[in-house]
């Protein structure tokens, strides 16, 4: 009966952008959630609502709406979940940073992060909107593959340069001019992903098919291994010059995964990981800094490590914070997250875990997982190989970064100096991750080859 009926009806060309309507609903939910968080924080810590509520609530909401409208006209088939998830995470981070500021004011602190974060949120979301407008198609970036390489390497090495390079907490990941500091590595990850994707698309055939077979494994020729060696050396250079294992692992992991996706040859993963682990182990022997991090990771509650300068104090305090949160958390404003150094940036996940509990942690992790899976989905279904690699690379870099940072706080891996994407205080990180949001939205619009997917 139904079959007959549908069969009898004329085929309707979909003109309503269904994805955009889903997105609108989700955005409404996200905006509501952010309002709820901010209200809870103000009521808990100030016992009243103040106009500052709007200062933190409206700008991201309005910009999300702007991006939404731009998508309606310029990329109507873009993925409907990416923007709302990014908004929820960014809003949650903002709320927590504002909450920490309030706690800090109550304790006589003067260093506040909220205003800076909201300004950077506005800038980053505006840049994401610009990406959607000025990157007209998913193929656009492919024209800039080698430019991206130079930009990426320049950004990566900038902190090691004299005069503008800055060390913060032992890691040399920043550049600074006067009071302004910037972490160029965050932007480098985008440029390098573009470069890797473009490079691998052109070279995948030779990387995949050449080489002699030994014991059933096809061993790549030396010239094919050349670029891998270069990236490996660059990663270790980052490790040595910038003293950060996390950043180094992030770039190398990204590259190895993209090589694997492009060629389908696990030999690259095996060789790559072996090389990286060997390099890292050697570094841990040679560099006190790395071995110290390992020591703190294994025995954070040992008084020797706990009391050491640059030891496990922060890690232990973060874990105490998480444990304090238990299943349900203390509620926003109910905990004491400011006991952890860098509670607003590197350790924001511990602050959130304390106040939102295990349930909140699971929700945040699930949001990241969902975000990453939307990105991978673009990779799965996109007809164009470059876009496939780019989407997969950008998603993977977010996943790996989450793993390294949150895993560092929860002692899955040694602690390093990366930021939690979209949550943590820090302009460079926000900017980079919102650009990724913009690029993913742009690519996802063309998944259906320009036609409606449904």
């Amino acid at each position, binding site marked *: 009966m139904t079959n007959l009926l549908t069969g009898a009806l004329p085929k309707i060309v979909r003109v309503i952008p269904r994805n955009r309507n889903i997105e609108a609903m989700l955005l409404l939910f996200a905006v509501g959630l952010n309002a709820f968080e901010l209200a809870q924080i103000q009521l808990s810590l100030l016992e009243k609502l103040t106009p500052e509520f709007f200062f933190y609530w409206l700008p991201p909401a309005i910009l999300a709406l702007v991006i939404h409208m731009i998508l309606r006209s310029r990329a109507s088939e873009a993925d409907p979940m990416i923007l709302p998830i990014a908004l929820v995470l960014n809003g949650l981070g903002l709320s927590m940073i504002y909450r920490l500021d309030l706690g800090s004011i109550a304790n006589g602190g003067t260093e506040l992060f909220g205003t800076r974060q909201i300004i950077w949120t506005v800038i980053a979301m505006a840049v994401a909107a610009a990406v959607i407008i000025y990157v007209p198609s998913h193929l656009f970036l492919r024209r800039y593959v080698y430019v991206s390489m130079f930009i990426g390497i320049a950004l990566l090495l900038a902190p090691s340069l004299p005069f503008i390079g800055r060390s913060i907490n032992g890691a040399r990941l920043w550049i600074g001019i006067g009071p302004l500091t910037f972490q160029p590595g965050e932007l480098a990850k985008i440029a390098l992903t573009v470069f890797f994707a473009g490079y691998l698309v052109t070279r995948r055939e030779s990387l995949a098919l050449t080489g002699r077979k030994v014991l059933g494994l096809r061993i790549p020729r030396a010239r094919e291994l050349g670029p891998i060696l270069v990236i490996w050396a660059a990663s270790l250079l980052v490790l040595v010059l910038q003293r950060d294992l996390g950043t180094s692992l992030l770039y190398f992991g990204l590259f190895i995964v993209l090589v*694997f996706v492009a060629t389908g040859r696990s030999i690259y993963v095996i060789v790559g990981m072996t090389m990286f682990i060997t390099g890292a182990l050697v570094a841990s022997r040679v560099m006190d800094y790395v071995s110290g991090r390992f020591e703190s990771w294994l025995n954070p509650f040992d008084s020797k490590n706990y009391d050491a300068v640059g030891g496990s104090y922060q890690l*232990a305090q973060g874990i105490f914070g*998480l444990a304090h949160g238990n*299943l349900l958390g203390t509620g926003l404003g109910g905990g004491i997250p400011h006991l952890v150094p860098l509670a607003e940036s590197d350790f924001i996940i511990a602050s959130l*875990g304390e106040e939102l509990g*295990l349930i909140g942690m699971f929700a945040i*992790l699930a949001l990241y997982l969902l975000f990453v899976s939307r990105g991978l989905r673009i*990779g799965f279904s996109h007809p164009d190989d470059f876009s496939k690699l780019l989407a997969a690379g950008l998603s993977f870099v977010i996943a790996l970064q989450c*793993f390294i940072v949150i895993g560092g706080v929860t002692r899955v891996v040694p602690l390093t100096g990366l930021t939690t994407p979209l949550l943590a205080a820090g302009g460079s990180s926000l900017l980079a991750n919102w650009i990724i949001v913009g690029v993913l939205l742009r690519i996802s619009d063309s998944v259906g080859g320009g036609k409606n997917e449904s």
Partner: protein
Amino acid sequence: MNRELRRVSYVIFVMFLSLFIATTGIQIINADAYSQDQHNVRTAYDSYKTQRGAILVDGQPIVESVKSDDIYRYQRVYKDEMYSSVTGFFSLYQGSTGLESAMGSYLTGKNSSQFFEQISALLSGNPVQGASVELTIDPVVQKAAWDALGKKKGAVVAIDPKTGNILAMVSKPGFDANLLAVHSGEESNANYQDLLNDKDGPLLNRATTELYAPGSVFKVIMAATAVESGLYTKDSTFPNPTKFQLPGTNVFVQNSGEGKCGGKGTVSIADALRLSCNVPMAQLGIALSQERIRAQAELFGFGKKIKYPMTSTASVYPENMDEAQTALSAFGQYDVRTNPLQMAMVSAAVANQGVLMKPNLIENVLSSNLSVLAQPQPEIFSQPMSQATAQSVKEMMIGAVSRGVSGNARIQDVLVAGKTGTAQNGKGQPYTLWFTGFAPADNPQVAVAVVIADGGGQGQGGVGNSLAAPVARKVMEAVLRK
């Protein structure tokens, strides 16, 4: 490429799975263990949400929480520095020590015995109030001990030998715990640094957690070992040379006067204790063997951390010594280490006819509605010797005070048993001075141990009898209200 992407998504899934598992481990499975970690000050913060219970001596608070105007709502107030080694401190920034730590669960109302209160608090929304802790300390004795030590670094522990109740526990110099209880982190941290850097070590608990060479007070344990072994009586004699060559070395042991021990050709164990002679003790040590001495010392509590309910540092009788070292250990030198709590326990066991009662500081714990949550009863710690042995050791200790070199502990009309000690700490280092004993010897009401560190300010000039014995006498007099 999609096949590879699928594999990558498995990898991502595993990475996130590990994060899910790790967070669950921290926030649920190990959460309790982390909340009790010594470095965790969150527990302290939490406890400010309720009014923390008071610590009482003779019904009067020596520590209490009073209302304050800041976000912490209560301010911890410490009344008297002489209790600093007992109460310890409770600080937002430095954690807690002493009874503030050991009785923390009662004081914050989180002890499992307050379960029903906690439930009703959960329902009514009113926080549980902390329970108050009444101590066995006698304020008169505590004050006497505090004053008697004067400006000297040292400690006193006085125990009721029949019950194990601690009547006084003093460590000098003390500290003002209010300095650490301030709510400003900057102030608290600065004050803490000052206390840590103070070369007199005010934060050290010399009564129970620091260890000192006992010197001749260890001879009481030797006397007990000798008689308890059945091989000797207090009248058993040893050769009485002026010097004794330590086996396998060129080192000679001498008595403190560098002469014989008494005028005779042989010397009894009782006289060796009375006159505190090293030569006969060295011979006795080798004859008894280190195993026998260690076994006896452990019955007195050596090698064990004692919970009273704070935790003491275990006293040490060294292992694997050669004969020379065993000989030195017999008069409390070499690596023998102990503290006043342990030595007071030794005297208490002798005083209580060979039965050692478990030391205890808690009279009772009362909840905010005055129901009794805990009331520790006297408990036997061990029986280190027979009644006969105890009687025999007691007689030797009486001799040491009434006719021997420990005479400064004598009290008018009261029979006092005791032993002094003057431990050497190496060339040029100030002596550690001791007294341990009990009174009245015929019906003991108090066992006491006094240690004076750093030579009592006199380098190698003072001896146990000149510096430690008078302090002990004042403490015993205070107990007997003389």
